[in-house]
């Protein structure tokens, strides 16, 4: 009698593992971070630092800057949280499953290792997504309130000083540009995409890492190096015949070949500055993030499939 082999990949099994991972992470009280985030957002909303602007820019320049500060603090905290979370939680997952012996129970069953890895990754991504969505909701709510307050005070001033309709319209559009916009949401999505790549990269490292600490430190370093991978790549592309020294030339090439380009995801600065992120740019970013994640998942599987426990 022949033994029926399980399929290489089963979406339902992956979803079960992903939901278990999500629950496992929620039990680590990760959402407590949201309370900290709420404090940061509320505090930055009330913290009105002295701001100065030339008289010809009008009062809007100062108020725009206050909205920009609120967005900066919120988006920065969101990015920091999602990157740290992507690295640390992914680094923790495999060693924790080994320590709890959950891994042995799962792998003893006809569960392909690809399902297990994908389930773990999707669980982490689901948690990052939910956390970012909650933080985004909080930030957007606070920003909308603040933008309305700013607009109301500007319109009151316009009434007092008898400003023309064109000036009022320019104030409205300028405040709207720094309020809750589609670009701001696109910026939050770019943070999620970057976190997905970081998590898949950390998962790959954790498949051959000797400890959680090693994975965390290495993934953090890779993240930082990845933020200026573009410079190394440009250097190499600009000097294909060797550049200044052969060592620098091959060093730049090695860096471009090994590390992902995390700098691409820094379009969030565009959203903070109130500029437009086109849909095509987000589509391209999604494409490259899916490519990175797929590559790192395949690599993780390649190493993990042969690992003995």
């Amino acid at each position, binding site marked *: 009698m022949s033994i029926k082999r399980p399929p290489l990949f089963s979406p339902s099994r992956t979803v079960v593992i992903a939901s278990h991972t999500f629950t496992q992470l929620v039990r680590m009280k990760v959402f407590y971070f949201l309370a900290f985030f709420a404090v940061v957002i509320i505090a930055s909303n009330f913290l009105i630092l002295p701001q100065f602007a030339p008289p010809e*820019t009008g009062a809007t320049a100062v108020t725009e800057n206050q909205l920009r500060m609120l967005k900066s603090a919120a988006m920065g905290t969101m990015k920091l949280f999602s990157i740290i979370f992507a690295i640390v939680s992914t680094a923790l997952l495999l060693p924790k499953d080994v320590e709890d012996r959950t891994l042995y129970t799962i792998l003893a069953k006809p569960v392909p290792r690809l399902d297990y890895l994908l389930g773990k990754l999707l669980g982490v991504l689901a948690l990052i997504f939910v956390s970012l969505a909650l933080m985004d909701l909080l930030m957007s709510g606070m920003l909308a309130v603040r933008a309305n307050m700013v607009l109301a005070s500007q319109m009151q001033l316009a009434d007092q000083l008898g400003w023309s309709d064109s000036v009022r319209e320019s104030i409205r559009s300028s405040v709207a540009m720094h309020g809750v916009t589609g670009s701001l949401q696109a910026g939050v999505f770019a943070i999620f995409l970057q976190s997905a790549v970081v998590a898949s990269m950390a998962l790959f490292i954790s498949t051959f890492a000797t400890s959680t600490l090693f994975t965390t430190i290495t993934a953090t370093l890779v993240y930082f190096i990845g933020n200026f991978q573009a410079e190394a790549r440009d250097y190499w592309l600009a000097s294909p015949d060797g550049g200044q020294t052969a060592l620098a030339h091959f060093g730049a090439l090695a860096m471009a070949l090994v590390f992902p380009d995390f700098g691409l995801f820094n379009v969030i600065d565009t959203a903070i500055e109130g500029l437009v992120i086109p849909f095509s740019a987000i589509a391209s970013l999604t494409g490259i993030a899916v490519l990175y994640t797929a590559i790192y998942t395949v690599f993780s599987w390649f190493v993990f499939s042969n690992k003995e426990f």
Partner: protein
Amino acid sequence: MKRLPRLPLLVLAVLATGALRIPLESALTADFRSRNLLLKPLDVSTQAKLGQTSAAVALGGLRTIVAVFQNIRANNAFQQQDWPRVAASFETVTTLAPRTLYYWQTGGWHMATNAASFYRDDQTLPAPRRAELRRDFIRQGTGFLQRGARNNPQSWELPYQIALLFDDPAKIPNIDEAVRWMDLAVSRGDGVPAAVQRQRLYLLARHPQRRQQALALARELYAEPGGIHRVSGVLSYLFALEHHPDVPPAQRRTLAELHPNSARAYQSLSAYWQHRHSGAPMDGVREALAELELSLGIPDDQSIFTNQP
């Protein structure tokens, strides 16, 4: 069959996928940079100025947040009237966030106006040194704004601010430069406020070689549908420009055509008369005011000519 060694295979796979990624990443980076979605990489000198922690945060993809904190630092320096530190801080801020007009506008204003006025009045310094420092800061501020205008080719705000600086008699006035920058401001898109277009008229009218152009512009603004430019300044400039001896009398508008009644005409022209030392054209203004005073029965002791400042 002998199994292939996994580590060399993995290394090969990493390099091969890297080689496939590079053209994609390179094209996407170039595309994002050309669409102004990504900022230029930070140079070494800026990283050194930021200090290790801020540089790490900026390199980690949070440049706008570092810019916000550097801006707060610049504001503190302004409150302490530490002008070299103000200038240095704004240089750093604008390197971090070159697309935020507020930083360019505020930095330029601090240098060209606040620092320059401070040194002009600083009695602790000998007069030649005061004059030198005042000039240096005006030039520094103007240069700073010009760099901002080059970095933000879509902005009308920065060329407008530069034009006002060159037009300011308390700075280093240069009517040619003022007109050149105002022309540039007006040429930058449809979002230029009506007041800036009128400001261009006032500048052109004061330029000895551009009065013909000023007359054409004044007539164009006057004829604008909806009469949005029919404000006191435009009406007075139009009146004076049309009363130049070169303009045939048949082509001149009378005060009755320009204003609803004599009282409004007098109010408008007498305000304009106050600017007679600024180089504004005054053809026909004195005579018109004298006639209006006569027709309105304004006593001699209340005459605009008796109460000349």
